[in-house]
């Protein structure tokens, strides 16, 4: 236990060099997310102890659910089996992937220290068909150290739900005993396999990208089709509680369960959390890969990526005891459902939309303890009033002159294999810069400052533009012989592709980065250190960039 209280309050200005170094080492390899989990219909879970790593160097004593052996399967299948694991304890617990109206069982073996007593799992919103083994507890049947409990369950509606301990929840949930259940719909609307949904698969296949979805729809509703998905579980930790639990467990030793004194008396109030986590990890650890070897007990990450126009399902659960205002930069989120209940209009929609959604559009989606929501997000750049790809009809560079043929909604969707698939065509070739540094169209409304006057962010793609060579063109550094009148050679105005953009470099990913984070900004810190906590960078990647969620 290295649980020393780090009382170093450091503001960004002093920490920045350190942070950049840390990130440089962490982000040389890109990593992505998705919604990985294990499949049933038989789940053999444990409750056990382990240490969770935090980016401040601390290892926090925790309890969590895990697997007693190799689970029956891992999903999505696109993540190679060799990289997956389900250890005896992990936080969050294994994501259980089941299908609507299909019965499944969860057997829980209690390997917690005997002083911790019994444990259990609550499955709010699911139908508990029967239990066997264990002993009766206050809220549900509980597992003792010697008698596992088996829950037989059925989910009668699709969607995302939480599961968590039903035994001394104020302590056990704080210690890490929670997880997610994803219920896939029994029926997928045919519209989710045709049209733009099919085109997106064509686009993925063209660039060698795998399909990382668990299903093609979140619900049996034509508005619930999606192209990509992520699961985010929000929780926080008060290290004092964990320290106290460890001290009492250690003092109790291998006492006999139920014997006098073989119990814990950890005070869970006053509550003063200093770790704020997404999927059990704090930023920047959350942006490392799923199943990264350095987090044997925190296998799930939070690192969303998407291409323009992709319908991205986000499954979000509040797993701690606080609410967190989760702000998605880049666009609003359409709330589809709450705890697996699709939110629909009370009346028929405007023709021909007969199943109108009634969930709100939110730019800040509050996470609430025990509550799950499903929402859909996308980013297209519609309405920016300038060409986000920096196309330039006067260039001699072929990729600067891609066509944009609008569909009925104004997007370039006719050719799924095009780099600018899903470009917003109304602004095609419309310039933003009055006198650009490099090979993008001129005559726009604004003048960008000289690069000497600003500081580059670690996730800055290097220019305002998206595309394989957009930044090189926009900074006058393309190998193309076309030279702007105000630019005689690459770098002459100091506008070379910027340095320091290590997490999203102009020669690498070069996507559009957006911060997704708790807007209780205090919570984007890790034990008083900024940046940290509930923060991740979402990247909108140009179509030719391969998003490999298995990394």
């Amino acid at each position, binding site marked *: 236990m290295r649980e020393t209280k780090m009382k170093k309050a450091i503001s*960004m*200005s*002093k920490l920045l060099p350190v942070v950049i170094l840390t990130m440089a080492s962490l982000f040389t390899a890109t990593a992505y997310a998705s919604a990985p989990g294990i499949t049933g219909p038989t789940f053999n879970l444990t409750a056990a102890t382990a240490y969770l790593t935090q980016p401040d160097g601390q290892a926090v004593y925790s309890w969590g659910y895990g697997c007693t052996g190799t689970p029956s399967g891992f999903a999505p299948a696109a993540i190679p089996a060799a990289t997956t694991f389900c250890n005896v304890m992990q936080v969050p617990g294994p994501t259980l992937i089941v299908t609507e109206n299909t019965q499944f069982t969860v057997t829980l073996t209690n390997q917690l220290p005997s002083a911790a007593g019994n444990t259990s799992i609550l499955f709010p919103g699911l139908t508990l068909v029967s239990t066997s083994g264990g002993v009766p507890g206050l809220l549900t049947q509980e597992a003792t150290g010697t008698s596992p409990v088996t829950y037989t369950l059925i989910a009668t509606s699709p969607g995302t739900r939480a599961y968590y301990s039903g035994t001394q929840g104020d302590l056990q949930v704080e210690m890490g005993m929670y997880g997610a259940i994803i219920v896939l719909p029994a029926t997928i609307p045919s519209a989710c396999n045709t049209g733009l949904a099919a085109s997106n698969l064509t686009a993925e296949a063209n660039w060698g990208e795998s399909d990382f979805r668990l299903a093609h729809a979140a619900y049996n509703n034509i*508005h619930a089709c999606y192209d990509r998905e992520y699961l985010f579980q929000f929780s926080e930790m008060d290290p004092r509680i964990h320290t106290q639990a460890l001290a009492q467990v250690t003092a109790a030793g291998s006492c006999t369960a139920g014997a006098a004194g073989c119990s814990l008396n950890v005070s869970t109030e006053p509550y003063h959390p*200093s770790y704020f986590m997404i999927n059990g990890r704090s930023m920047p650890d959350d942006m490392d890969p799923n199943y990264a070897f350095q987090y044997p007990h925190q296998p799930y990450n939070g690192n969303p990526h998407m291409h323009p126009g992709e319908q991205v399902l986000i499954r979000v659960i509040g797993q701690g005891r606080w*609410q*967190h205002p989760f*702000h998605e*930069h*880049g*666009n*609003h989120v*359409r709330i589809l459902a709450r705890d697996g209940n699709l939110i629909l*209009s*009370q*009346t028929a*929609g*405007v023709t*021909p*939309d007969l199943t*109108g*959604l*009634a969930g*709100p*559009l*939110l*730019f800040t989606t509050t996470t609430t303890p025990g509550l799950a929501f499903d929402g859909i*997000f*996308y980013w297209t*750049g*519609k*309405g*920016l*009033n300038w060409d986000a790809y920096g196309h330039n009809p006067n260039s001699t560079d072929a990729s600067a002159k891609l066509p944009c043929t*609008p*569909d009925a*909604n104004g997007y370039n969707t006719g050719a799924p294999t095009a780099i600018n698939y899903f470009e917003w*065509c*109304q*602004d095609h070739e*419309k310039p933003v810069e*009055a006198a650009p540094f490099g090979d993008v169209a001129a005559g726009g*409304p604004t*003048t960008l*400052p*000289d690069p000497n*006057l*600003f*500081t*580059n*962010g670690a996730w*800055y793609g290097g220019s*305002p533009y998206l595309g394989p060579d957009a930044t090189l063109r926009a900074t006058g550094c393309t190998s193309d012989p076309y030279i702007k009148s105000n630019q005689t050679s690459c770098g002459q105005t100091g506008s070379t592709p910027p340095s320091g953009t290590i997490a999203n470099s102009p020669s690498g990913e070069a996507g559009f*980065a*957006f911060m997704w984070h708790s*807007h*209780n900004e*205090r919570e984007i810190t890790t*034990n008083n250190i900024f940046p940290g906590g509930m923060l991740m960078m979402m990247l*909108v990647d140009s179509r030719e960039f391969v998003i490999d969620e298995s990394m």
Partner: protein
Amino acid sequence: MRKLYQISLTIILIGVAAGVASAQSFRVQCPPSTITHPVVANNNSEPSYVGPTYTGTSGFPAAPAHVNGAIKCQQISGGDGYATMADGTQTYLFSFGPLSGLAKIANGQPGTDFPNEFNTIYAGPMLQPGDPATTVNAAGTFTFNGAVGQVPDLDNGGAINGHVDPRQMMDVGVMNGNIPAPLMAIDEDDEYFLTLSNVGMIMRPDLFEQHTVHFHGYPNASAFYDGVPDASVAINIGASFTYYYLAPDAGTYFWHCHITPPEHLQMGMVGQLYVRPRQDRVTGDLFTALNSQQLDLRTKCDSNTDILCSNPLPAINTAAAGAATVLNGGTSGYAYNDGDGSTYYDVEYPIQIHGFDPNFHFVGMTFNPEGFADMKDKYFLLNGRSYPDTVTAGSLQTQSADGVNHFSQPLSAIINIPAGKKALLRISDLDVSEYQTLASLGIPMHVVGYNAKLLRDQAGNNLYYNTNSITLAGGESLDVILDATGYTAGSVFYLYTPNLDHLSNDAENFGGLMTEVRIN
């Protein structure tokens, strides 16, 4: 004072040094015309809405069928300043201040200008530190709303092209922080040019911090102009950056600095921003006008093909006629393009909820690092003020460390409603550490919008609801209409927080998150 002077001199020198490397580091941008708004003479007022900008799949470079909206510009400083809390404490801020629209801001109005206002060259004697408060307090009048610092570019034939004299910007911009930060208001279809000039934090010369503007909630935001320093660029001290957006869908947004958010937001770099709907410029039938917005793919809402379709046609056509509110120059308007007139208001009030932790602000004024986990707000603010300052009319002044009075909190929180009329409260919350509830004693709150979107399902049914309290976290906004129909002039109601421990001003146990609704 000598020390302060030296610091400001240093910063000016830095600005000058950077200026040698490029053309100029401080500058403003407000083109009188653009590709989108090509005719100079048409860009200094809002034209009436008579039809969609584009129809069908047409777009640039085709000429628009109708040119809608205008050009709007604003300049702000990023730096520091002081504010006065309701218990009399002077609180140190990291903050934004106005560098255009000064007279409007001082009168509680948005500081947003049309090009002909913004590009007006100041003609009087030199602006003074603390202006407009310095001039007003000397019994002078201050009416200048143009860009502070802009001067004719003598190297280009005296053109008004954004060239500035940095002395005026430093004189006015240093220590002129406002809480909330300068108010911004634009109309749908406007092009908006916001210039942020980083004048440095004079009390913290150890910090060479950048500042940014995050337009919180903009749909389909640009990563480059999103103001997240990690994802884009951030302007250094002594230089300017101009953010550019076509106004997004109507709604109540807000803005803030995105550098080290737990620090810069807590320290006060938070402001208000709203977008008025196209419907304010409609003279005829509202339903017909909303229908014609469906002809432009940028503004249409087809819930069948767009999951984020934000503004469907109303299920019931009320045949309401437009009041053309913006064109009439009055205070009334609509919160959203409702198509049925249901979000009409007679007066509007931007209300920002915020909180200050005095310990954090004290530590923030020193050279010591602040702690985040222990952050605990003790001042609970509506428009940067706690009760009873919330019911003080006009600007609050604070003497800063430069010995000069500044208009530190220009926006009163009094809600004045003429009897029988409706008030729109554009409520935003930028708390950094906790949720807060605001309750209405008396007039019910009629909630019509949430997170800058009309509350309407995809079948066109309005989902408005009445309540007596709303709860928001930092990063959320909500639109409430208070309808004073049936209330008599002279009556007073309260907006206050049922988080009873928030009805305090640090050690004073009376005050906090409370203000008055006055029927008059």
